[in-house]
């Protein structure tokens, strides 16, 4: 029983990190329809930016996280303007290919700048675990979970409750009407991509200290983010959150009670089953056909 509880807590914490990874991508992939293989690289960028801000500039931990988010958003905006804007008329495969190029280039640039040795990012939290009855959790991870929830709520409000968010959704739902109503389409694309990239960098800044920062850390992050986005339904922030939690808990229980060698297989099988049974994602109302 204690073991099961601990597994569930672990799964919740892991799921929170997956959700955090997914919300940025659900904007870029779900709304903009860009298969962004470089998403994990913005996550990596966030981790390294935090490391640099702490180590080189001597910044406060929280200031460093903010700097990392800004860094991700700015680079995302640049990326959108320089690479995606000229390709807007092209097919989804073409933009995917350019993002594959960005993925390879960014990862190897990181390797060149930082070397392959993993960096440990210092954080101000005590390392001794918080013990609650039979279960324990590291203070940093609890903090990340809370902050992730906060970021998700903020992102949701920004998209559903502000003028900017309304313009953003309008742009991708009905571009012509949005343009007629005075929405600046190009700018909305840039803003959305920057927003998504900033969220990825935020995930990197928060999870970097939990794990380690190293050049290939983004690969796994990308894979999990894609899974979460599709589980939750494209462009659906609450869906991505629930999808993340589901994936985290499923993997944790799979590794705990089935086989750790097949840990990731549990996630894959769930994805396959969910897509077969509810093809539009787990948390999306079924669209009517016709």
């Amino acid at each position, binding site marked *: 029983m204690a073991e099961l509880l601990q597994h569930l807590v672990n799964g919740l914490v892991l799921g929170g990190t997956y959700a955090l990874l997914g919300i940025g991508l659900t904007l870029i*992939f779900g709304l903009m329809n860009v298969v962004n293989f470089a998403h994990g690289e913005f996550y990596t960028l966030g981790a390294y930016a935090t490391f640099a801000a702490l180590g080189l500039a001597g910044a406060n931990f929280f200031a460093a996280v903010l700097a990392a988010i800004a860094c991700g958003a700015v680079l995302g905006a640049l990326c959108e303007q320089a690479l995606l804007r000229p*390709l807007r008329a092209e097919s989804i495969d073409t933009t995917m290919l350019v993002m594959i190029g960005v993925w390879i280039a*960014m990862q190897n640039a990181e*390797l060149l700048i930082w070397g392959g040795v993993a960096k440990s990012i210092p954080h101000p939290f005590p390392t001794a675990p918080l013990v609650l009855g039979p279960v324990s959790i590291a203070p940093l991870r609890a903090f990340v979970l809370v902050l992730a929830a906060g970021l998700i709520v903020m992102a949701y409000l920004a998209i559903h409750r502000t003028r900017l968010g309304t313009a953003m959704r309008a742009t991708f739902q009905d571009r012509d009407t949005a343009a007629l109503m005075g929405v600046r389409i190009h700018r909305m694309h840039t803003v959305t991509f920057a927003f998504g990239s900033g969220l990825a960098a935020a995930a990197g800044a928060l999870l970097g200290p939990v794990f380690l920062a190293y050049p290939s850390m983004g690969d796994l992050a990308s894979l999990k983010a894609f899974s979460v986005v599709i589980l939750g339904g494209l462009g659906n922030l609450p869906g991505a959150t629930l999808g993340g939690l589901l994936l985290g808990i499923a993997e944790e229980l799979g590794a705990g009670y089935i086989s750790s*060698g097949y840990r990731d297989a549990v996630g894959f099988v769930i994805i396959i089953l969910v897509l077969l049974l509810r093809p539009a994602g787990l948390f999306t109302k079924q669209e009517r056909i016709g």
Partner: protein
Amino acid sequence: MSGAGRAVLAGLALTLPFWLPNPYFLHVAIMAGIFGVLALSLNLLLGYTGQLSLGHAAFFGIGAYASALLTLRLEWSFWLALPAAVALAALAGWLIGRLALKLRGAYFVLVTISFAGVVALVSVNWMELTNGPLGLPGVPAPTLGPWSLRGKPAYYYLVLAAVLLASLVCRRLVHSRIGRAFVALRENEPLAESVGVDVTHYLVLAAVVSAAMAGLAGSLYAHYTRFVSPEVFLFSYTVTMVIMVVAGGKGTLAGPLVGALIFTVLPEALRAVVSWQWQMLAYGVLLILLVVFLPRGIVPAIAAWRVRQAP
């Protein structure tokens, strides 16, 4: 391409082992051929039916493992193991086709990724069958009667034959009602159904043929490198195929082959001109430039250019 151009190309391909300065280049040519078959295979799904499979390494890996296991464990001849590997990969393609036929776009992509992920994990964890992460060394080289095809020139011709076979199948398919049904599904699925194109049948057929071709490439790979390990399921192999197809020109017959040639030669060329720190970075940057300047791929760009030249 003009008849003369085609004849020159055929002549070059057929005589390659005689004028290439050293076997390393022949090795590159063989790898380009194997990836050419893979790119053709992915192109059937992505270029013609418009469905992106990001799990294609699974079919490649299944072909490689099947061929390696049948020759190693059951001591089958390569010539029996090869069709068996193709058939097994085709079966996997059928399974994925049946499973995912209701899904389109991103959802199809994720199911294929997940399928490949599961297969890769099986290859790592099912020690008794696959020898797990230790891989299967010592896969025998094929023989033809009294001759061993172990040498590079002989293997080159084997791979060349496979490339020709794969492109012939693609060409015939594309210029038949089957190929037109694939394209119809890509262009306008409801309209295609309204004139009797059976979506399920043709998507599954495309997946089966595509997987079979990837299995063929996998078998050729296994008997060429003579070592198979779970890394054959690496996501980077699928990514390489996508790069080849899309950069070469999806939905064209020549595009995947051109892409396979360029993107097999490019990393090797980069080994020669750039020190190792910069190779992958340069690869990524070149890829970005290629997409930005030729967004539809190399072969369509050349075709468009030729149309402009000859009004």
